[in-house]
Structures are given as C-alpha cells and as structure tokens.
C-alpha cells in the first residue's frame, strides 16, 4: 500500500512539474499533457463502469456530446455566460444518463456494449441532420475560452493546471466511492448479481447510480473537450472517436482506474509524434489495439501488475 502511495506521489509531482521540465513546452503541454488529461477523464468514466460493474459502455461520448453541444450552442449562438451554461450542460449530460441507463442497464455484456454504441452513433446522426441546431457537419467553431478570477484559460498552462485539478479530483472521487459501502455493493453486483438480489439488495438503483455517476464524469469531460478543442462537430461523437476512446481504455488496462490515464498519455503522445502522417496513424492504433486485445487483454496496467507479481515471486515475497 505504501508503495502505491509513493507511486501516486511521484506521478503527481511529475504531472505538476511537467510544463517546466518538458522540452518544447509550447507544443507538448497542450498536445501531450492537456490533451491526455481531457481524454483520460473521458476514459475514466468508462473505466469506472467497467471496473466496478463489469459493463463496457460506448455511450460515454453521448453524454460528453450532450454537455459539449449545450456549452457550445449556448455560448456561441445565444451568448450565455459559462457560469450558467457549464453547470447546466453538466446537469443535462448527467440526467440524460438516467434515460439511457434505464434502458441500457436491462442488458448485459455484448448487448450493453452494442446498445451504448448505438446511442452514441444516434447522437452523431442527429448532430449531422439537425443543422438548425448543431450547424450540421461543420459544427460549432471558435468557442471562446473561459476567464475565471482574471485567469484566461486560452493560455496553455492555466488550462493544463485546470484540467489536472479536475482529473485529480475525479480520480480521487472514484477511488473514494470504491471504498464506501456503495462501492463494495457495486462489486458484489458485478461478481454475482443474483446473490446480491437474494441477500436483499435492490441492484437496479445501485447500477443506476454508478451509471449516472459515470455520465457525470463524461459530461465534465465533454465540457473540457469544448474548451480544449474550441470546436465541436458530429465527428466529436462519431464512430472513429468512440473507437479511439476504447483503444485508450483497453490499451491502458480496462480494469484499472489509472489505466484510463496511462492509455490517454500513450495515445496523446503517439498522436503528437506521428501527427504528420495522420493517414497512417489511425491504422497504427487499430493494429496496436488488436494486438493488445489478443495478447494482453488486461492492458499496460495488467502487464505491469503481472511483472510485479513475478518479481515478487522470485524474491520470495508473496504476491
């Protein structure tokens, strides 16, 4: 446990120092750091659900998309202040989780996966068609950056630290929830729902709360995306983006909360490096994804855990 704490501390210090120690900070802070934090928070909402409920959801971009579009439309088209639009967007995204959850949680496994994918693709086609609202496939561009207490988040470093703060807070909140009796009951549902029911638990409300919580995280990520990318279009919730997210979660390690960020950093760095060859890059991530799924379905975090266990065994320490 103390080793884990040391690791968290090291990662945290590195993350805080990152803008000062990276070469070419103008490029890497934004394209590496800020981007990874945004993708990581989106992926965290997926990992939380997968880890605690055993459900792989592709619906997270639906919630991100709802929240993102609300912020974009209200601030660009209707001049609403962020102080109003951001809480409203997060609330709307979170509440849409109630409707989707009510339907999707009746299913399991691959059905749940398919259904949530259909939900996200449905938003994609709506965003394309409803041109009067969403401006169709051009999307909504040049969304202004927020200014909070005189700090302009159009600058690279303030935005990075804002995102870092959000990521840490949400990660800690997930960890905290897992330790509460609610979190323990969730794991019970994941491992054996029938037994939980026979023990007198009403499992549907438990699953619902977890699902809506994950849509809350995804909605925050949606707002982060709008501020980071400064535009939103149907492609923000399209098939390719959904798969990208899945790649992050799986490559990082889908049963670890930290896997979301490990995967996000890896993919963000990877993308930044071969930005100039974009045509081949997505193919490359796809191949990486398939290889990881076939050889190491637990992802990088899983590989690390296995290596630790093996080292422990060699040294005679019980793993």
């Amino acid at each position, binding site marked *: 446990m103390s080793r884990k704490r040391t690791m968290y501390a090291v990662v945290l210090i590195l993350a805080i120092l990152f803008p000062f120690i990276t070469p070419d900070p103008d490029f890497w802070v934004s394209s590496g750091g800020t981007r990874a934090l945004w993708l990581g928070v989106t992926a965290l909402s997926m990992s939380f659900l997968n880890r605690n409920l055993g459900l*792989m959801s592709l619906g997270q971009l639906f919630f991100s998309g709802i929240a993102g579009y609300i912020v974009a439309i209200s601030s660009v088209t209707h001049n609403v202040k962020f102080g109003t639009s951001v809480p409203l967007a997060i609330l709307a995204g979170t509440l849409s989780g109630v*409707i989707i959850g*009510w*339907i999707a949680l*009746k*299913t*399991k*496994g*691959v*059905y749940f*996966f*398919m*259904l949530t*994918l*259909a*939900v996200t*693709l*449905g*938003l*994609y*086609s*709506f965003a*394309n*068609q*409803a*041109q*009067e*609202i969403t401006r169709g496939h051009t999307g909504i561009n040049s969304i202004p950056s927020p200014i909070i207490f005189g700090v302009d988040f159009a600058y690279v470093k303030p935005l990075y630290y804002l995102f870092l703060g959000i990521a840490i807070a949400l990660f800690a909140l997930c960890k905290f929830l897992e330790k509460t009796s609610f979190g323990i009951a969730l794991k019970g549902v994941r491992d054996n729902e029938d037994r939980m029911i026979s023990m007198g638990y009403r499992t549907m409300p438990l699953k619902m709360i977890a699902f809506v919580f994950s849509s809350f995280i995804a909605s925050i990520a949606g707002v982060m995306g709008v501020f980071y990318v400064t535009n939103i279009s149907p492609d923000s919730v*399209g*098939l*390719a983006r959904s*798969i990208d997210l*899945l*790649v992050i979660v*799986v490559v990082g390690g889908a049963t670890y909360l930290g896997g979301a960020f490990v995967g996000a950093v890896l993919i963000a760095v990877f993308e930044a490096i071969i930005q100039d060859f974009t*045509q*081949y890059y*997505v*193919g490359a*991530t*796809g*191949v990486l*994804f*398939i290889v990881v*799924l*076939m050889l190491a*379905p637990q992802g990088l975090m899983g590989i690390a855990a296995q290596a630790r266990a093996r080292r422990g065994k060699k040294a005679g320490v019980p793993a």
Partner: protein
Amino acid sequence: MEYPGEGVSMTRFIFTFLNGLTLAGLYFLVASGLTLIFGLMRVINLAHGAFYLLSGYVSWTIADKTDNWFYGAVAGSLTLGVFGTLVYVLLLRKFQYEELRVALITLGVALVLAQAMLAIFGGDYYQTNYPENVSFSVPIPGLGLSYPFFRIFVLILAIIVAVGLWVFISKTRYGAIIRAGVDDTTMVSALGINVQAVFIWIFFLGSLLVGFAGAVGGTTNSFGMGTDGDYLLFSLQVVIIGGLGSIGGVAIGSFLVGVIGQFATGYYPTFAGMITFAMLILVLAFRPQGILGKKQ
C-alpha cells in the same frame, strides 16, 4: 404551415412509403449477415459497417472497369466472403466464446479498414451505375408517376434472401448440422462432423451477405467516408429492435427502421435521428431483448 394540394401530399406519402420499404429491403440485406453470424455463433461483428463500405468500393471499381454491374456485385460479395473468413480464422476464432473481446477486436478491424479505405479512395462519394437492363421505371397505377425498378428489385432480393435463409437454416440437413454444431460442439464433432469447417462456412456466408448488400446499396445510395458508421448504426438499430439472432426479427426491425426512418427524414428532417432513436428506446423499454429476441 402550408397544406399542398391533396394529390401532391398523397404522392409524397406514397413515395416516402415506397422509399422506406425499399430501404428496409436494403437494411435487411445488410443486417441479415450480422444476425446470422451472431445467432449461430454468438460472435458479433462490429466491422459490419466497414465490410459494407469495402464491398461498395470493390463493386464500384470492378463494375467501372468491366462496365458490368453483375461482375462488380460478384466481386464485392466474394471479396468480403473471403475477407470475413480470414478475419474470423486469424483474429476471432481463438476467442470465440469471449463475446465482448471478439466485439472489441472487430471494432479494431473496423478502425484499420476505415483508415485504409480513406487512404485508397479518399473522401469523395461514389455510386455504382444501375445495371442497364433494370434501369427503367415502373408506373404506379392511378397516380401517373413511376418508380425506379431497381429499388423494387432490392426489395424482391431481400425477400428471396429472407426465405432462402429461413429454409436453409430450419429445413435442410446442413441447417440442422449448423444448429446442432452451435448447441453442442463436442457432440457434433464426435459424430464425425468438422464443426470448425461449419463455423468457417457460416462466417463466409454472413460476410458474403454483407458484401452483396454493399454492392446493391452502393448502387441505390451513394457511399464514402462515414458510410461505415452509418450502416453500422442502421444494422445495430435493426437487430436491437428486432432481436439479435433472429432472421424474422431482422425483417421486422428493417421494416420499422426503414419506413419510420424514411417518414421522419421526409417530414421532420431535423429530428429524423431522434425519432428513430425514440423508437429504439420505446421498444427496449418493453422488450429489452428486442421484438423477436430470446431472453438473454
């Protein structure tokens, strides 16, 4: 709101209905391969939309080169049949009983395919020319209007495929072997039947069907970048509404998604996506397993 003349709105209604019905035929062709493979093997192929698009490109290329629609359709179907079989043998077979892992791998395949197709064919939209001998229109009695025969032909094809699949699976000896092989692989193997070969044939047939759908759909509708996601969505909607794994379910799902979707697009274009989506939610609220689906 303006009310156009009675005749005009009637014509519009009939045209919308016919478009919806023929589109339903196309959706059936697309989704039947997906449901066939899942129903028999519990393997869900999320590269289905990418398969559809790939066949569109292959059929277009061959039809363009040979000036013959039929060659294009055969090439598209066979290419996909072989390609799908290779994906199954090389990537999926080992994990056949881990449903979610297989679904994820097929999404990876979809990603790689989409990018490869974009690199080769670019972002333009394509549409294969109608085969010459069926490029005429049929008059609609009583309205003095006509409707392209090829679209009606698609509907007829869908019905033929539906009946053919149903007869093949539930009435023939091969169908019986397939069903038995799925229910009890070990027992059927013990009877001296090569179950692995049976599975390969199912995958070949399912991929062949989506290949054929790509050739046909690439003629009635344009296709290009993003079409893979669209058709994956249609197929998912169809099988989720109709019930995964059931041929009859696909028929019902295709009809609902095709006709209602077409009316929504024709009359309320802004909310078309939402209307289909609301229908999906409504069906699932009452039947989580889909209209004809078996309880999970």
